[in-house]
């Protein structure tokens, strides 16, 4: 019987071989051992539980956010007032989020790219590469409040006065510059790890093919390896951006978390960047039922915007990864 089945398809092309139907493959799980079936059921249960929880949170936030969000909220600045109608919206925190995201990524991306290329392509001297590697891992594991605290001490130094508000020689140490500098540290390990992984996934013979036509390492990295690793580069940048957008501790300690921009000095853009401000996370924090402002509807609306930004980033990562092509 088994011989007949296996010989049939080769004999005549037109003759259909009796193929195992889809059902028989599925039925086979009922012939599994009990322990495997229990394992399968358990995995299914955990998977569904996780999915329900996540979907529940996201959907709840979305529904609540959509209920309370209005265009005015996004286009008016926060204001002092006694009722919700007087306290304005969250234009400043929204812009604040965009500013710190751009600045922190602007710092973290080139550094992360450089470190990843060094670790993956050069890794010399070996001992220094090992040290750098564990440093990056340590950064990845550190809570952001630690960076925030360190940042406060660092940017209060007299020499750092040019980066924040200064009164009679006393440096405030809180500004968009200070916050972005520290926020870049929490994005850095994600960028390094992803770019490095992407570079190391490229087969060695692709590098050698470039060296073998007389290209230098740096030319190979720029023209062949980084373009090939682009999905990973984008993924690292987007994940880093997600961390930056979502961080609260550094904003509270280093950006001052003043709901409106409080520029330092008269120079238009530089003044704002040297001054304090807030982001959506601290806006939500201040307006949550436990916060000082306690306006949950506005917190939900701002949370909705924040969540939408992060979901959009994740979507971008998916697209970037799916577009990547690979060698055999």
């Amino acid at each position, binding site marked *: 019987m*088994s011989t007949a089945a*296996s010989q049939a398809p080769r004999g005549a092309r037109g003759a259909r071989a009796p193929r195992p139907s889809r059902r028989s493959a599925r039925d086979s799980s009922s012939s599994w051992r009990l322990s495997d079936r229990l394992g399968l059921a358990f995995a299914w249960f955990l998977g569904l539980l996780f999915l329900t929880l996540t979907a529940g949170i996201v959907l709840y936030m979305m529904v609540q956010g959509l209920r309370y969000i209005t265009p005015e909220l996004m286009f008016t600045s926060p204001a002092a007032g006694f009722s919700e109608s007087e306290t304005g919206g969250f234009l400043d925190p929204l812009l604040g989020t965009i500013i710190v995201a751009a600045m922190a990524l602007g710092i973290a991306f080139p550094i992360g790219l450089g470190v990843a290329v060094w670790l993956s392509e050069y890794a010399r001297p070996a001992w220094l590469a090992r040290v750098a590697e564990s440093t990056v891992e340590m950064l990845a594991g550190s809570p952001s409040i630690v960076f925030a605290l360190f940042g406060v001490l660092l940017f209060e130094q007299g020499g750092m006065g040019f980066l924040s508000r200064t009164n009679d020689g006393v440096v405030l140490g809180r500004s968009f510059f200070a916050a972005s500098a520290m926020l870049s540290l929490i994005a850095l390990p994600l960028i390094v790890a992803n770019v490095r992984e992407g570079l190391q996934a490229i087969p060695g*013979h692709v590098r*050698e093919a*470039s060296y073998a036509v007389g290209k230098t390492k740096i*030319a190979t990295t720029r*023209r062949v390896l980084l373009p*090939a690793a682009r999905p990973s580069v984008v993924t690292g940048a987007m994940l880093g951006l997600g961390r930056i957008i979502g961080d609260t501790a550094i904003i509270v300690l280093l950006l001052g978390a003043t709901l409106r921009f409080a520029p330092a000095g008269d120079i238009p853009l530089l003044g704002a960047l040297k001054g304090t401000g807030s982001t959506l996370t601290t806006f939500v924090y201040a307006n949550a039922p436990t916060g000082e402002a306690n306006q949950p509807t506005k917190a939900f609306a701002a949370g909705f915007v924040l969540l939408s930004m992060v979901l959009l980033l994740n979507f971008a990562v998916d697209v970037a990864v799916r577009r990547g*092509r690979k060698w055999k």
Partner: protein
Amino acid sequence: MSLSSPPPVRRLPLTGADTAVLTSEETPSFVSAPRRRGESSSLALDRMQVEELSIAYGPKLAVDTVSLPIRQGEVLALIGPSGCGKTTLLRSLNRLTELTKTASAKGRITLDGEDIATLEPTALRRRVTMVFQQPNPFPMSVFDNVAYVLREQASRRPKRKFLRGAVRDALERAGLWDEVGDTLDHPALRLSGGQQQRLCIARALAADPEVLLLDEPCSALDPQSTKVIEDLIVQLREQVAVVIVTHNLQQAYRIADYVGFMYLGELVEYGSADRVFGNPREARTKEYISGGFG
């Protein structure tokens, strides 16, 4: 019917006359088979000279005092079992072995009389280019794959329009122009495996090298693509010196003018393809080419 017993594997018939040739004393069956190449060129020109070359990875000797000439107008095939050092020998010809940290070399290789150790590696590698086992076009368009080689390091200059002629020339020499001439902007990784490998050859030719190294260029390809590339290699031998590493003895017989048989790092036998395949001097060569080991 349960699927518990896998269907039997069908084997090629391996009886009678076919198996008889595989015994160690006979001449291999392919020695009378048709060849791709015509007669060897009488104008063979010495390009490279390997002199007493030894290469070791750490304490392990991969190539053991090998000497041989590489001539333009001839195809040199390096054959031998896996791990015999033939790829290492090939890679040492354009100093790619140096990229392996543990590698150390002794001996001398000259290119047109100059010791290659004294040449700048990137300059050397433009004169001695290499094609790899796996087709590995760069993740860019077909045009840019070739143009990348023509441009200075990471530069984007000269611009496209100045390179069109040279790119076309390289693609034509690799026999790929007719297939991709209209779609130069398509990503190279969308080409078929055989086309990708010919693009890699075009890329290696674009640098206008004196020596072309091929490391099992057909082992990832189907027979049709293999035939196209073999024809190409035979055509190219007039313009560049060609060294090919292959596991495929029939292929070596079809295209090579000279054959070097390596075993455990040593060059056991070197000679014209006719002699090495038809009348090997060494017992190990005889055994290997008739399928005795390896």
